[in-house]
C-alpha cells in the first residue's frame, strides 16, 4: 500500500519523513475525532445556545360564559404596530456609513496607478476607537428608528407617538430578536390607516396579541375576578425561556379559581438569530394549547337586573350584595357585590387611581360581600327560630302578649313591633322580638343549633372563586360553656354570636322554599373546550347537589311560608309597602319574604352601623327563585332591601317570559 510502502522503504531519511507526515495526519485525525465525535453534542448545544432564542407564547385564554352562552370574559385579538429590527440592520449599517467620519488621503493608491497619474487623492473612513464606533452605531440606530417612528406618527396622525431613545435602547439590548411594539392596542381606525398606507416601511408590521376583555364591564366583576401580569412558566412547562410574551394570571374569582383551566398551556417557539442577535427565522416547536371555557350558572340578564336594582334603590356606591338562586337546582343566577370594579382596568396594568379606589377602607370594592363578609342576620334568622319552636311543639295560633319590650334577666330588649297579642304569623310579619325570644327560650337553644347545623351555617361552600368566609354559628360545644339565656335570646333575633353570608342565607331561603332540601350552590355549570368542534368532552358539574335536609315536617314549612307571604301581602307586614304597587301588576309573582335589620356594634357595644336584609322566594305556589338582598347602611330591611328584591322579581318575571338569548347554543335544562 502507498503509505506502508513509504514507511518500509530502505531510505532512512524518507522513512523518517513519511513517519512524521503520518504522525501529523494521525494527530489531526484524532483531533477531528475528538472535536466532531466526542464533543459533537456539546458543540451542537453551543450552536443552539447562540442561535436559538426560546420564546414563551401564552395560550389563548378560555372564555367565561353565562348559562346562555353570553360572553362575560374573552380574549380578543389586539393589534400592535411593531418594528421588526432585523429588517433594519441594513439601514443601520448604511446610516452608520454615512455618519462615520472620513479622512482624505493623498498618494495612497498603488504605485502603478500613481505613475499613471490616477487616484491621487481619495477618501477613507477614519480609524475610530471601539467606544467611538459603538457611540456612532447607536446614533445611526436612533436616526433610523427615530425617522420611522416620526413617519408612522404622521401617517397615523398620532402626534403623541414620539421616539423614545431610552426605550428603544432597552428593547434593542434585551429583546432584539423580538419586534418592538410602537403602538400598543391600535384602534381599528389606526389599523386601517396603517394598512392603507402600506405599512410605511418594510420593517413595520401588525402583530396580533390576545387581549382579555370583559364586555359587560363591572357586571359580575367579583365572580369573574381579574388578571394580573405574570409571564412566569406554569407548572409542567419549560422553565427557562429566553423571552416571554406578556401573559396574565387570574388572581380572584373564576379567573383565579379556574386559572389552570382557562390558561391552557403556553407554547414555545424558537427564534433563530444571527451573530448580531437579529431574528433570522423562527419555528414553533410546541404550539400553545388554548384554555377551556368556563360556563357559569349566572344569567347575565338576572345579574344585570340585580345590579341595576341595587344601584337604583340604594345608590351607585351602595355597599351591599344580592344573591339570586334557583331554589330547586341550587344554581346561582346572580351574585352581586357592590361596589364593584371593572376588571378591564387591570389590563395591561391597574392605574394608581383605580388602585386607590380598590383599597378604599369604606367602600372596599375588593371584597365580595355576597360570600366574603360576616354579617349578623338579624330578624331574618327568626325564620329558623320559628321552625325550631314549631318543631318543639309551639302552637302557631297560640297568642303571646307583647308589652313592646322584653327583659332577659335585668337586660331590656326593645321590640319594634307594637304592644299587643301575637300569634306565629303576626309575630313573623311584624318581626316581634318578644315573641321569638320568649318561644326560643322555651324551646331551648339545642333545637336552634340543630337546624343551624343542618343548614351548615358556619361552614364554607368551597367556592371556586376562593373569596369566601365560613361565617360563625355556635356549636353544642360553644353552648356548653359560658352560654347564658341572654345569648340564646340574642341568637333568637339573629344577633350576638352568629355571622352569616348572603349566599348562606340564599341556600337557607331556598331550603324553606323547596321543602327542606339544603343544596350546594352551583356557580360553574361546566368546563368545555374553546373549539365547539372539538371532540373533547365537556366537564359537567351536576345541578341540585343535595347537602343536607332540614328534617322539618312539611306542615311547619307551610306555616312559615304563609307567614312569609303575609310579610309582603298583609298591610301590617314589614315588606308590604315595598310590594304594594308590584302586586297590582298583572302576572306578579307572589313573594314570600322576611326583613331583617341587624345592629352592628363595636367592642364597646356601641351601634356603629346596620345590616339590612331581605330574604325572599317566589312564586309562592311553586317556588323557583330565592333572592337575598343585603345592604350595609341606615334604614331598615323593609324600606331599603325589599324594594331591591321587588325590582329583581319584576325583572325575573320578564326574563322568564322572554326567550333566552342564544338558547339554542348552550341551554341548561
Amino acid at each position: 500500500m502507498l503509505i506502508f510502502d513509504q514507511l518500509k522503504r530502505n531510505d532512512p531519511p524518507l522513512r523518517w519523513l513519511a513517519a512524521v507526515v503520518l504522525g501529523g495526519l494521525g494527530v489531526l485525525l484524532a483531533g477531528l475525532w475528538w472535536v466532531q465525535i466526542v464533543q459533537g453534542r456539546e458543540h451542537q448545544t453551543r450552536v443552539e445556545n447562540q442561535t436559538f432564542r426560546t420564546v414563551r407564547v401564552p395560550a389563548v385564554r378560555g372564555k367565561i360564559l353565562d348559562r346562555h352562552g353570553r360572553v362575560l370574559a374573552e380574549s380578543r385579538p389586539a393589534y400592535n404596530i411593531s418594528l421588526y429590527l432585523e429588517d433594519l440592520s441594513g439601514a443601520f449599517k448604511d446610516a452608520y456609513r454615512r455618519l462615520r467620519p472620513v479622512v482624505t488621503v493623498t498618494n495612497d493608491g498603488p504605485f502603478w496607478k500613481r505613475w499613471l497619474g490616477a487616484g491621487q487623492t481619495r477618501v477613507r473612513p477614519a480609524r475610530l476607537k471601539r467606544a467611538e464606533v459603538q457611540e456612532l452605531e447607536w446614533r445611526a440606530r436612533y436616526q433610523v428608528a427615530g425617522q420611522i417612528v416620526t413617519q408612522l406618527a404622521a401617517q397615523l396622525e398620532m402626534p403623541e407617538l414620539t421616539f423614545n431613545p431610552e426605550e428603544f435602547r432597552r428593547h434593542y439590548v434585551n429583546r432584539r430578536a423580538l419586534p418592538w411594539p410602537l403602538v400598543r392596542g391600535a384602534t381599528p381606525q389606526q389599523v386601517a390607516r396603517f394598512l392603507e398606507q402600506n405599512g410605511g416601511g418594510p420593517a413595520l408590521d401588525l402583530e396580533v396579541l390576545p387581549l382579555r376583555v370583559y364586555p359587560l364591564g363591572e357586571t359580575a366583576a367579583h365572580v369573574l375576578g381579574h388578571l394580573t401580569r405574570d409571564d412566569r412558566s406554569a407548572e409542567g412547562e419549560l422553565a427557562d425561556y429566553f423571552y416571554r410574551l406578556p401573559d396574565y394570571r387570574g388572581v380572584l374569582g373564576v379567573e383565579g379559581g379556574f386559572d389552570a383551566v382557562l390558561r391552557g398551556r403556553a407554547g414555545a417557539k424558537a427564534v433563530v438569530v444571527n451573530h448580531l442577535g437579529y431574528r433570522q427565522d423562527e419555528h414553533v416547536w410546541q404550539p400553545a394549547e388554548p384554555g377551556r371555557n368556563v360556563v357559569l350558572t349566572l344569567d347575565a340578564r338576572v345579574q344585570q337586573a340585580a345590579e341595576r336594582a341595587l344601584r337604583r334603590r340604594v345608590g351607585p356606591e351602595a355597599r351591599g350584595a344580592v344573591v339570586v338562586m334557583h331554589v330547586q337546582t341550587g344554581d346561582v343566577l346572580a351574585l352581586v357585590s357592590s361596589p364593584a370594579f371593572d376588571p378591564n382596568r387591570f389590563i395591561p396594568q391597574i392605574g394608581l387611581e383605580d388602585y386607590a379606589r380598590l383599597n378604599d377602607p369604606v367602600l372596599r370594592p375588593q371584597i365580595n360581600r355576597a360570600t366574603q363578609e360576616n354579617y349578623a342576620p338579624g330578624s331574618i334568622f327568626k325564620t329558623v327560630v320559628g321552625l325550631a319552636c314549631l318543631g318543639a311543639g309551639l302552637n302557631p295560633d297560640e297568642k303571646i302578649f307583647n308589652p313592646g319590650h322584653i327583659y332577659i334577666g335585668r337586660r331590656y330588649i326593645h321590640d319594634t313591633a307594637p304592644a299587643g297579642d301575637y300569634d306565629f304569623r303576626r309575630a313573623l310579619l311584624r318581626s316581634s322580638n318578644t315573641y321569638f325570644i320568649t318561644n326560643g327560650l322555651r324551646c331551648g337553644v339545642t333545637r336552634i343549633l340543630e337546624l343551624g347545623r343542618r343548614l351548615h351555617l358556619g361552614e364554607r361552600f368551597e367556592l371556586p372563586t376562593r373569596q369566601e368566609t365560613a361565617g360563625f354559628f355556635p356549636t353544642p360545644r360553644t353552648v356548653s360553656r359560658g352560654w347564658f339565656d341572654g345569648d340564646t335570646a340574642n341568637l333568637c333575633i339573629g344577633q350576638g354570636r352568629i355571622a352569616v353570608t348572603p349566599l348562606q342565607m340564599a341556600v337557607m331561603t331556598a331550603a324553606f322554599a323547596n321543602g327542606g332540601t339544603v343544596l350546594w350552590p352551583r356557580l360553574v355549570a361546566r368546563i368545555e373546550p374553546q373549539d365547539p368542534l372539538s371532540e373533547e368532552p365537556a366537564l359537567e358539574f351536576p345541578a341540585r347537589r343535595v347537602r343536607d335536609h332540614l328534617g322539618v315536617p312539611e306542615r311547619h314549612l307551610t306555616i312559615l311560608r304563609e307567614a312569609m307571604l303575609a310579610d309582603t301581602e298583609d298591610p301590617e307586614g314589614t315588606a308590604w309597602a315595598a310590594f304594594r304597587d308590584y302586586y297590582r301588576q298583572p302576572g306578579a309573582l307572589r313573594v314570600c319574604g322576611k326583613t331583617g335589620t341587624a345592629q352592628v356594634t363595636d367592642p364597646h357595644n356601641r351601634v356603629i352601623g346596620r345590616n339590612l336584609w331581605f330574604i325572599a322566594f317566589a312564586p309562592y305556589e311553586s317556588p323557583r327563585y330565592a333572592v337575598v338582598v343585603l345592604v350595609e347602611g341606615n334604614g331598615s330591611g323593609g324600606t331599603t332591601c325589599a324594594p331591591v328584591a321587588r325590582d329583581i322579581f319584576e325583572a325575573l318575571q320578564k326574563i322568564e317570559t322572554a326567550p333566552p338569548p342564544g338558547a339554542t347554543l348552550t341551554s341548561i335544562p
Partner: protein
Amino acid sequence: MTSNALAQVTFETPLRVRRRELDRPQIAAVLGLVTFGALFVWSATHAGDAGSGLAWFEWRWVRQCVWYALGAAAAVAVCAVDYRTLARWSYVAYWLAMLLLGLVLVPGIGTSHGWGALRWIDLGPVQFQPSEFAKLAFILAAANYLSRPPEELRQARVFWTGIGLMVLPFGLILKEPDLGSALVLLPTGLAMMFVAGAPRKYLFRLVGGVGALAALLLVDVLFAPPGWRIKLEEYQRDRLLVYFGRDFTSLAPPNATAAELERLRERQRDRSYNVRQASIAVGSGGLTGKGLGRGTQKALGFLPPSVAHNDFIFSVLAEETGFVGSVSVLALYAVVLFTGLRTAGQARDRLGRLLAVGVVTLLFSQVFINIGMNIRLMPVTGVPLPLLSYGGSSVLGSLIAIGILQNVYLRRKG
C-alpha cells in the same frame, strides 16, 4: 494474423522504453480536493456574493474556479519543462522573489487590504501575494543548492549558506508580518537539509537552539511582567495567549482599574472569537454534518464572512459534511503527500528527490497548521489550506507545487 500480432505484443512490451506517465492517484486526489474547494468556497460565499449584486464573474467561487484552471495550466507548463532545466533558473526566481518580498514592505507598493499587514501587491483587478511564490522559489533554490554531494554539506560555509537561503525569506515574510507563512519555511528547509544529508549533529543543534529560543519567547509572552516583555505585535501576543488558554487579565499591571480589566476581558473575547466559532462549527458537524449549504455558523455570521472562505474554509466544510467529510479531505491530502514521498523515493537524482521532499513538507506543514488551527490544536496564523482556501496566489502556488511533483515523477528513474 492473430498469433502474429500477439507475438509482436509479447515481444515488444518488455523491450520498449518505460512510458513516461503521470502520477494518476495524485492527480485524482488533487482533483478531489479542488472539487471540495470549489464546493465549499461556493457554500461559504454564494449567499453574500449573490446578495450584494455582484456580476456572476465576480462571484468568488467562480473566481476560484478560474484560478483552479489557471493553476492547472501553470502546472502543465511546469511539467512540460524538465525540472533540471527549471533548476537552472532557480536562483533567478529566488532573488526575484526576494525582491518582491522586499517591495511588498514598501508602503504604497504593498497593500494591506485593510488588515494591517503588508502582504499583497495590488495589480489592479487582482492582488498578488509574493510570499506564496517565495515559498516555491525557496524550494527550487534550496533543492538546487543542496543537491550537491553530501560531503560538501559538511563544510560549515555550505551548511550556513543553506541556512541563510532559508532565513532570508523567513525574515522578510516575518517582517510583513505573516508569521504563519514564514513558519512553514522552517520545517520545509530543515526537512530538505535532513534528506540532503546535512550533518545530523548540526541540524539537531540548530533545531534545539531554535526550539529553546522559541520556548524562551513563549515563556516571556505568557508569564513575563510588563517591563520584561519583548516587542511583539499585539495581536500575535494575543493569539499565543488565546492558544495557551491564558487569562488576559492575569497579565494586567497590578494597579489596573476595573474598567481596564473589563477591556482586557473584552479583548480576550474578541481575540478568541474566531477560533471558538470555528471549533464550534467543526464540532457541531458531528458525524455526517448538516448538509451542503446548510451550515448555520457561516449563514448566521457567527463565523465571520471575512475568514470563512479562506483561513477557516475547513470549518465550513467540517460543519456541513461532518467527520465523514473532514476525514475524506484528510485522506485526500494523505494520498497527495504519500504519492509525493513515493516520487521522492523514485526520483532520478538528488535534485528531484529534494524538490519532492520540499513540496511535500511545505504542503504538509500548511495542512497541519491550518486544520490544527480550526480544531484549536494550533494557534491562529494566517496559513491557507492548500488547494481549498480561497485565494489566487495560494491556489496557483499549490497547483504549481503539484506540477513540480508530477515533473519529478514524470522523469523518475527507469
